[in-house]
């Protein structure tokens, strides 16, 4: 079943989800909500879209675990980089 899905991942379904999320983002950005609620919602949708692209279009879902580890390795480093510099303004 997984092999069959790997041969024909649902590219169009993912495209539709990405499109709907993009439209939802644009609509949500202009709602009259507190700034923090808007920002968190938008970041959630953007990360969701980014994960879909990485998992299905970059085929990360079907790659060996070692490549997975390699692929996520810069994420903690990225957080450290941003947090380390943000503290300069505290």
């Amino acid at each position, binding site marked *: 079943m997984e092999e069959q899905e790997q*041969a024909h991942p649902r590219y*169009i379904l993912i495209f539709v989800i990405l499109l709907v999320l993009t439209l939802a983002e644009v609509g949500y*950005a202009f709602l009259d909500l507190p700034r923090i609620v808007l920002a968190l919602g938008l970041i959630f949708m953007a990360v969701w879209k980014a994960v879909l*692209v990485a998992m299905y279009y970059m085929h990360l879902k079907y790659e060996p675990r*070692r*490549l997975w580890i390699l*692929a996520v390795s810069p994420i903690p*480093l990225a957080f450290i980089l*941003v947090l380390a*510099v943000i503290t300069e303004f505290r």
Partner: protein
Amino acid sequence: MSQAAVATMDRKPMPGMKVYNMKLGMWVFLLSEVMFFTSLIGSYLIMRFAHPDHWTDPGVVLNVPLTAVNTFLLICSSVTMVKAFSAIQNGDQKGLKNWLLATILIGASFVGIQGIEYAALSGEGFVAALDGYHAVGRGNPHEGPSLGGPLYGATFYAMTGFHGAHVSIGVLCLIFVYIKALRGGYTEDNLAGVEVIGLYWHFVDLVWILLFTIVYLI
């Protein structure tokens, strides 16, 4: 050595990685790109927290509808790219060429629309220069009050400009791959070039998804 033998050798996995070298190399390159764009996004966030008066609400200065269309185009190009890869996986040479051409055209359209956006914004005083900055907002008369500050313009052009450069380089690489595809350079057993440029292209799309949210919507 035959072309097929060379292709098989190129796809030989790195010991312990289970992924062929060319693909592993592209992934390592993309990880360095993650850190590059993190430095840009991180700098942007820090400057925005430190100088909130330099920014405006979404859609006041930047053209969100036009950029939403551009985002749609880039997402479409990811679909056409993955379709090109899927076609050559199935040995469909015609499909590979058609989907690659579609990806090139859509990618070039993205860069073109970004150029149009830049021209319109700079015409409205939204520039990256400290002295010349006088953003009046969309559709406002030029003598109106300035909105935001020069940090807004500088960070906007730095982030979207570097991304646009990546898209442009991607389009050039895709043209190279397309020419090779026209000459029958890819087969079911020799598709590493298509897969590797696909990874780069999807990464560029992924970065734009984040930039669109951070720069235009928040």
